[in-house]
């Protein structure tokens, strides 16, 4: 079975966030709310640069800064790529 586009985006984002926040990816799975981690302006911009380069997108800073959790970031990237979000969130 191949991963859906959103799953592979999520994996890449989790890997980047793990690197930037110096936390294991499992910790982000367990607690995806960014504010719980060291998500300050420096970390968020560092992650932005990496997300844009590795996933080949350009994001608008306003919704990026409004992102609350990992899935919000995945949706932003998916949207920028023109992929229909697969989220099944309330």
């Amino acid at each position, binding site marked *: 079975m191949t991963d859906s586009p959103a799953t592979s985006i999520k994996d890449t984002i989790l890997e980047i966030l793990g*690197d*930037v926040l110096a936390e294991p990816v499992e910790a982000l799975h367990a607690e995806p709310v960014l504010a719980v981690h060291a998500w300050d302006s420096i970390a968020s*911009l*560092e992650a932005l*640069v*990496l997300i844009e*380069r*590795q996933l080949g997108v350009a994001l608008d800073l306003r919704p990026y800064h409004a992102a609350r959790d990992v899935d919000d970031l995945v949706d932003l990237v998916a949207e920028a790529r023109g992929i229909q979000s697969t989220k099944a969130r309330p």
Partner: protein
Amino acid sequence: MPKTLDTEYLDDTTNLIAVLRAAVADCRAPDPATRHALGRLDNPTALRTAGRVLARLRLDGDDLRPVRVAVLAPFTTGGFEHLLRATLIGAGTLPTIDVGAYGAFEISLATNAFDADGSPDVVACLLNDSYFRPARWSATDVPALVAHLDDRMADLRELVLASAQRTGATLVLHTVPMPAELRDGLVSWRGRAAVAAAWHRLNAGILELAAAHSQVTVVDLVGLLADVGAPSRDERLHSYADMPYTDEVLTVLAQQVRRVTQARLGLSRRVLALDLDNTLWGGVLGEVGPEGVQLGGLYPGKCYAGLQHAAARLREQGVILALASKNDADLVDRTLTGHPEVALRPDAFSARAVNWAPKAGNLRAMSETLSLSTGSFVFMDDSPFERGHVRAELPDVAVVSAAGDPAHLTGSLLQHGWFDVLDLTDTDRRRPELYRARSMRIEHSAAFTSSQDYLNALALEMTGTPVTGYTVPRAAQLAARTNQFNLTGLRYDETTTGAMGTDPDHLVAVFSVADRFGDEGIVGAVWADVTGPQWRIGNLVLSCRVLGRGVELAIVEWIARRAAAAGADQLTARYVRTDRNGAADGFLDKAGFGRPGDDGWCALQLADRPDTFPTWIRLRDDER
């Protein structure tokens, strides 16, 4: 298990990062092959990730040379620290990087805040357009805009020169790209040209700081960016976080700061070993003969000629050239001598290995003949087999590829700045000839049955002189570069050496040696505290080029005579073991010093000192 010697494996950035993580986890320095791969890395994303991983590097051993770098900027530096760390570790150093507080650029320079725990080796002063231009400007008053730029440049000049005066660090600055807002905000071509001219003058003013103070180095970032195919600014990050440069630009800056740091630490390479066929000329000499090789004229011959001229210019600046070619030696000689387009004649090479033996062994033998470690070699060859073999056998050698389109040859050789130095000394310029004489000297030695006969026949002369403004850079260079005969490992930098040289309580002297094969130039230096009846040697260094000739004993005699003449009764010195200065072990005993006291210091009683002066050296006391 990663194959760390397999360069293709390491050229995949995912693998490289994995190898770096493993090194960090094991508290060990990345091995030379990994460091070279890191040094070749110019992908900002991968370099930044590598820097972040390496931020956690804690070492058990001392494989890497410690270096302290301070970073000052009137803006947010973003990923610069990570990029700089990665590239510095790639260069074989272990950096401590201290990034100054945001908004404190001018106050840090004005107070030398970065010197709080002693001078760092390098202070990177990053600049951006906002530092120079007014927040608001009118398109109808271009002269006011130009006057503002001039004023800001004058402010910067004053700050930088005053700071350089008070620190021992090397300050690195750079030119600044003109912002699009200034260029495009004007609609008249004449006005646009006037502002661009003012901006170019501003950059010229920054570049001129390098001539105004020996501790200031300036990188022409604007020129470098012409070769970087990426935007220099991300407007979102600029307006949101005051980050004026993209990671592409910061990577260029980090690489340049790394090059200056390498030069400052004396870690530059000194030998360029070149292959012949399809490197210095096109074609295989053994197949096409001297008349058939591609050299000079139109493409591709002009590319090979271009590489020869580039190598000849490196030689003019002190790089030792060596030949490493699997070829027939006579045929090579005939071609180098007779081909009209050859820029590197036989006497351009200080060492030659033209034979059919493996090149790694040849390079190792050359390193012994020249008394220069393989870590000071750059090897350029078109054959992936030869490059791979040398990389595997001699991981310290920097390997440059001459494969592919010959149009890239000169760029491949020069782009990494392997041979960068802060300043050229007279000895640098003469080095290739000195090493050629050395090779001849070794051939000469084979004719003697004992080393004593050989030394007598050399007719060695040594001259000692207190340092002057002309010789301080060479003394500091010796302190930075000498590892084997380095008595205490203390590396006095140029500023300290200059200050000690003019202080009556200190003596810094340099020693030059000549023999029947030529003048070696300045090969040794000593730093001493000369107050009172007891003179203390802070350090004594001697180039490995002259080891084994008793020059170190002649240096002791030179100092002892001066100390006795000044009324001192004792000369003291100590040997401090480092990981590489075994050559100086036992020297003090041989020179007549007593056994070390509890504090490690040994004393030489001047009045009844034993005669250890080598009979084959003539001492010329060249006082000025």
